[in-house]
């Protein structure tokens, strides 16, 4: 980074490299977050006498 300063004007910072505004930037596609696992209730045993 270079700091350029002329008397009577605001000092400006000149970076080493800047994105070319004429080149459309490609936005990385987001990978969808994995879904939360759905809790499946355990099958409940029927109460009562065992079947014969």
């Amino acid at each position, binding site marked *: 980074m*270079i700091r350029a300063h002329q008397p009577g004007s605001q000092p*400006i910072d*000149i*970076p*080493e*490299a*800047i*994105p*070319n*505004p*004429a*080149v459309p*930037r490609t936005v990385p596609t987001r990978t969808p977050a994995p879904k939360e696992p759905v809790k499946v209730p355990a099958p409940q045993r029927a109460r009562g006498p065992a079947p014969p």
Partner: protein
Amino acid sequence: VLVTYAYRLQDLLSLLGTKAPEGATALAAKVRRVEHGLLSVGLKIHCLDDGEKFHKLIEGLGGSSRILEVNHFKDARASFCLVLPPVGSAASAIQLIECIEHFIGSSIFGNSHIQLQLCSPGRLSPRASALLGIAFYLGSDTLRRYTQADLQTTFQSDFHHPRGIRLVLYDAHGDFDKDFAWWNRCGVLEPELPFTNGRTDLLIGSGSRLDVENINLVATLLVHAEFDGFWRSLGEEFGAEMEAMLRRHILSGLVAAPWVRESWAQIGDDERFFAGLQELVAYAYGEFTRVKERRLLLFGRWRDVPARSPNGILEEVQTLLAKYRKLVETQSKLIGQAGEPV
């Protein structure tokens, strides 16, 4: 003859295949295939840090003494320069870099510790070399600032092949792979390039995929214009359009700067070139600073952000590159499978 790499492309692909099998297999199938009559592409990787991540790759290819020490040319700040064998197209070159990225587990494109050098067959005239350098700079997705230290190489003051401190470099009469198809003036595919030797290289620094594609396109147009290839008339039109654009922006004097070091270079040419490059950089940075648009941000605040200007040189270069890329792709479809124009 100087030897720049001492391994075979097949050996490199086999090694890369151990970690990136799909990419290496896909690359092996088309690695020497030329696309749309464009030039073959060579790459050099200058490593500015200790290069530890390349250790396994270099050992796998035969070791540092065999692979690196045969090559005396490198960026003056680099720990080593790895020369890759040339491939048939920009797409293959990009895929090769991606396979190496996969192998070493680190990025090469956009890495500030890696300086890429792109090699195109055929020595361009000084004027065409200037157009190549200017088109690369303005067409890149990154606008860079340079110091002379960024462009210093071990051959800048070499006794036999002095290359000066430049962005564009000629080869040093090293080994040259001419076994790539060349589309001659009549559109007939010749099995070899029409030069026995000679390259025009660009030190692109921390480069991108777009840089590889742009340089390959522009170098092809300019080389075909100067060596009577199939794209001769398109290359001449491109050169004329570039020069007209530079005149509109009062930058035509840049083309007269010594962009490439010739054998009859004069004292002070390095400085004359660097002054020209600085003017180009200042113009591009100036446009970046000047052209803004107001955007509404969160919480109803407005802010000026860099924008595209239809009359700006940066936008014009993108339009020019897109136009000639489209023309090359469209016209190349007219070449039949047998190598004759339809």
